[in-house]
């Protein structure tokens, strides 16, 4: 087959022998076998399973972060409320931000990246499958590590309490003596490793593993946006890693990077944090932009309007995103010249974003729009993100921002961007790709109901915050007084938050109901291509077989799959060339060599949180954690490249076997997967 894992190549070099495995460096450790049960998830290197696990974990963290948000809203529903003490409130709103940004939004983006990038470019898997598994387990370990801060050493005693932005010196030991900021710094350090490793993996995948003929400018917009996201992660994560290292050393080893009394400038942290933090915003939003750039054309039955402009505006956002970070610091006293420069650059980043919005509208224009649930979500993203974008322009004016910053106006702004732009987009993506991932539809009826509840709840929650902010309500305050005029809108906002919770619960119920109906055989078969879609992931069976495609797809143009289904007659009308079933692969090719599962990614990943606990509580634990990591890497390097008897795929596959057909052999040389 086309895509062959040639991880055995290094062994070959030494011996010059064939890559038939006769010797096992660590005889006890063969690679895991079997494609069913929990083991197949723990040890998988399949990008689809990893993508699904990212999605499940992200959704779980989204619900946890949402529960924090509900408590914040309950506390603020009335003036002078005391549901949460100030001490607990500071931890809860910090955890809400940290969990939502780092443990929900980033991994949900990673879920779509992992699942869809290889499929959209017609690849067998990502470039480094074991590394992919490693980044997921590292992420999950880091996320759970962060969450344990809630109850280790007492219930809400040791959770981070410095805000997700963790401004120094408030995060120094002197001002935050609990272990919370340690958990924050080390936990994010760990999840940062996951993001960085994943980014490198996916960048290599996109650059090296595209189907023959798929030039960069024939890639789907989603793959483009995810690719830009990975590039941003690649450059942004090291910055936050450095900042977190400095913070960790300040707190644990009495360093003085942020100790003002020793002459440090606290603005150093702000610069480091926001040089990461602002590209982070685009890391979060670009996947969603990509998702709706797939959904809107499909359900408008038109190609995306202005493909090159969609791609280049994404790239422009990626570049300009690095030149706007200090707009988070307009009030910090960096001086009017710096403020003016960042103010102007911030205003101009609205231009490529506006291009995208108008292109989505132009795609809808003249289309045959089918308002399925995914399309409803995608349309809502266009509408709601626009609101966030417009309020963003109002505080790019630095003078105006001096009134708006750190008020609920900002909270409203970025929730319209993050919830209205990102989370709604992800939900649209769930409904859109669900049949592809699992082989059954989510209920449209429940989906539409939950959509309306969610959009109404969302607007009720965050719309009033614009008013509250302009009325002068500060962010991150545990309570307010009755005479401040904030009562009414806070109450409305709390109602809205619970509507969002109801909508999310409806989504979960939808999954359970639809899944049961599927098990009972009551749902229609989605087939390979339920929506008459355009990109390559629809050109294989649903759910996607482990080997993705039966054979390598020769790509001639953008939207290759659509063009195989549809052509034009003499009068220029679109006519069917072939049905999706005829074009799509049915997954019946059993003659495909796949990378074997591996014990070592999860083994090595477990070590990192242990090192984290060790740094905080007892350095000896670091030794144990370090042994896990080193042992994992050792096993990783020396584990047998493959198991000839592996039953990892539903066929008995000769290790050396490559599909005989000449065309595929030719491709094999191009499509090499090195683990």
């Amino acid at each position: 087959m086309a895509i062959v894992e040639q991880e055995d190549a290094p062994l070959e070099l030494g011996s010059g022998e064939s890559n038939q495995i006769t010797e096992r460096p660590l005889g006890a450790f063969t690679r895991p076998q079997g494609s069913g049960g929990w083991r197949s998830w723990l040890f998988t290197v399949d990008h689809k399973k990893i993508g699904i696990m990212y999605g499940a974990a992200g959704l779980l963290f989204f619900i946890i972060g949402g529960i924090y948000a509900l408590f914040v809203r309950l506390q603020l529903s009335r003036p002078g409320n005391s549901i949460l003490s100030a001490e607990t409130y500071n931890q809860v709103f910090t955890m809400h931000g940290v969990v939502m940004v780092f443990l929900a939004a980033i991994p949900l983006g990673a879920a779509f990246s992992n699942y869809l990038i290889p499929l959209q470019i017609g690849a067998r898997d990502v470039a480094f499958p074991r590394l992919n598994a490693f980044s997921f387990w590292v992420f999950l370990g880091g996320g759970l590590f962060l969450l344990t801060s809630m109850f280790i050493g007492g219930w809400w005693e040791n959770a981070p309490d410095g805000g997700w932005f963790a401004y120094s010196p408030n995060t120094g030991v002197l001002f935050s003596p609990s272990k919370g900021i340690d958990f924050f710094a080390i936990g994010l350090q760990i999840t940062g490793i996951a993001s960085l490793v994943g980014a490198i993996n996916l960048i290599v995948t996109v650059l090296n593993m595209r189907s023959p003929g798929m030039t960069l400018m024939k890639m789907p917009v989603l793959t483009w946006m995810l690719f830009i996201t990975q590039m941003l992660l690649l450059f942004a994560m090291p910055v936050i890693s450095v900042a977190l290292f400095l913070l960790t050393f300040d707190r644990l080893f009495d360093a003085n990077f942020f100790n003002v009394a020793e002459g440090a400038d606290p603005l150093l942290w702000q610069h480091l944090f926001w040089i990461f933090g602002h590209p982070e915003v685009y890391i979060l939003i670009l996947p969603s932009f990509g998702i709706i750039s797939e959904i809107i054309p499909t359900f408008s039955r038109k190609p995306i309007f202005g493909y090159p402009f969609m791609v280049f505006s994404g790239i422009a956002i990626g570049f300009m995103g690095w030149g706007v970070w200090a707009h988070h610091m307009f009030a910090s006293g960096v001086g009017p010249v710096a403020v003016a420069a960042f103010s102007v650059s911030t205003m101009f980043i609205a231009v490529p974003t506006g291009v995208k919005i108008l292109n989505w509208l132009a795609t809808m224009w003249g289309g045959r729009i089918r308002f399925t649930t995914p399309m409803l979500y995608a349309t809502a993203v266009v509408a709601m993100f626009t609101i966030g974008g417009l309020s963003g322009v109002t505080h790019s004016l630095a003078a105006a921002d001096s009134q708006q910053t750190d008020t609920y106006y900002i909270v409203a702004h970025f929730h319209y961007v993050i919830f209205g732009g990102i989370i709604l987009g992800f939900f649209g993506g769930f409904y859109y790709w669900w049949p592809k991932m699992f082989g059954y539809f989510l209920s449209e009826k429940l989906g539409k109901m939950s959509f309306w509840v969610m959009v109404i709840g969302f607007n009720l929650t965050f719309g009033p915050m614009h008013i509250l902010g302009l009325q002068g309500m500060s962010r991150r305050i545990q309570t307010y007084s009755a005479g401040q005029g904030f009562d009414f809108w806070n109450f409305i906002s709390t109602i809205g938050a619970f509507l969002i919770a109801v909508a999310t619960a409806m989504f979960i119920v939808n999954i359970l109901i639809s899944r049961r109906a599927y098990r009972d055989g009551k749902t229609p078969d989605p087939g390979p291509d339920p929506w008459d879609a355009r990109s390559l992931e629809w050109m294989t069976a649903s759910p996607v077989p482990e080997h993705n495609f039966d054979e390598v797809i020769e790509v001639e143009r953008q939207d290759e799959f659509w063009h195989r289904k549809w052509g034009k007659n003499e009068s220029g009308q679109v006519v069917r060339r072939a049905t999706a079933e005829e074009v799509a692969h049915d997954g019946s090719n059993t003659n495909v060599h796949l990378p074997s599962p591996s014990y070592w990614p999860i083994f090595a990943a477990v070590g990192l949180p242990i090192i984290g606990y060790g740094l905080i509580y007892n350095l000896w634990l670091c030794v144990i954690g370090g042994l896990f990591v080193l042992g994992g890497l050792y096993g990783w390097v020396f584990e047998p490249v493959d198991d000839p008897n592996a039953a990892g795929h539903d066929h008995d596959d000769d290790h050396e076997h490559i599909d005989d057909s000449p065309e595929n052999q030719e491709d094999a040389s191009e499509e090499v997967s090195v683990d």
Partner: protein
Amino acid sequence: MTSPRLGSTVSKQSSYSRATRGVNSLKKIPNQHFRLMIFFVVIATLFVTGCASDAPLDTLKPAGRKANDINTLINPIFVIAGIIFIFIQGAVLYLGWKFRVRAPQEGEDSFNGDYPDEDFPEQVHGHFAAEIGWTIGPAILMAAIAIFSVGALFSLDDVDAAPEGAAHPEVEVIVVGQQWWWEYHYYLDGVDGADQPDFVTANEIVIPVGQDVRIYTTSRDVIHSFWIPRLNGKKDAVPGRTTPWVVQANEVGRFAGQCTEFCGLSHAYMRMYAVALSHEGFQTWVENQLESRQPLQEGDKNYEGEQIFLANCSRCHVINGITSREVNGSIQPDSMAMYGNIEEFRDHSDGSLGQGKYTGSVNLTAGAAPNLTHFATRSSYAGSFFELYPDAQDMSDAGDYLRLAGSDYGRGTLESWLRNSPAAKPNAQPGQARGMPNLNLSEADIDLLVDYLISLD
């Protein structure tokens, strides 16, 4: 290419089992849009009514020159943003309405994707001129806004000359944030070259009306942000930095403020007021603030209260002329010298962050507590979270701020604050030397102490 929602296409699509669905969904989809419209109308109504409510921190009700300038800048932007908002939302609704076709959704819950084959619109891939247009157009709009924006930004940092008749045209104030209250160091002739402030007060910054008063924000511990929304935007108070900013009010009155940079436990309770007095009023206020006290003698009214204060409060609180502390091994009366000058806030290499009333590691957090020399002249206390005088707002707005001392005050709240301050608002935590601890005073002591404090006019 007819849309299947038209009746004529129903027969054409007889090969599709779902041909009759159109009737159902024709009702369904408009219904959704109708709901959406209702929703926006409700929101708009609520918005209009909500803005009418009274909010002392309202950024849209400027009472100072700077806040006014900001509003002049932002109001047209709100209008432009509103127009774009209506245009985009209108486009979404219009396009969704105009070009919709129903999704097949008969009987069963799930969509099964059976679209009519022939129903395709024209396959438009793009339009170069349009793309260039909506790249350049917004860029030009942004450039135009940027010109006004940058102009407004630079003028925001300008300080005008004091108006005619100003009693103290050179007055400058160092505004020191700390967990969780504000301290004001008044330099009547400016901070340059001065060794120490003329006097120090807390929670309420008092300014002469109409005059730009330059302040320097700084901090003794973490970052805070100084914000009186009706007078000016906010400026962070960063330890080790002194950042110039302006406070100016067009009218006499009391203007609420709130610390807006998250500063730890009691952030929500860190508030302040700016009070604008007439120029004569300001002069009177300054003269009063410059006065020190004399220690009371046995038999004087409030003598016991002063003794309780010295025994329980003077470790942290200063009353000019009364309190004293150990400096370099000898007891010395407190003086303005201990507050240092602006250079000490900039150069903190000795760890003092401007000044410290104590030495040692808790210096940063516990060093300073409000100077109480003229406690009773202020309308609020404890980070301006509690009002000392119930009528403070109305009296200050009427120009009677100076008459607050001696008027009716809220004794019960002050007593409960002294009884157990961490219970009254989030405050000192075990292991953290900051905020006011529970002093475990007896009720009799609290009574005497309240009488004493309220005499500090």
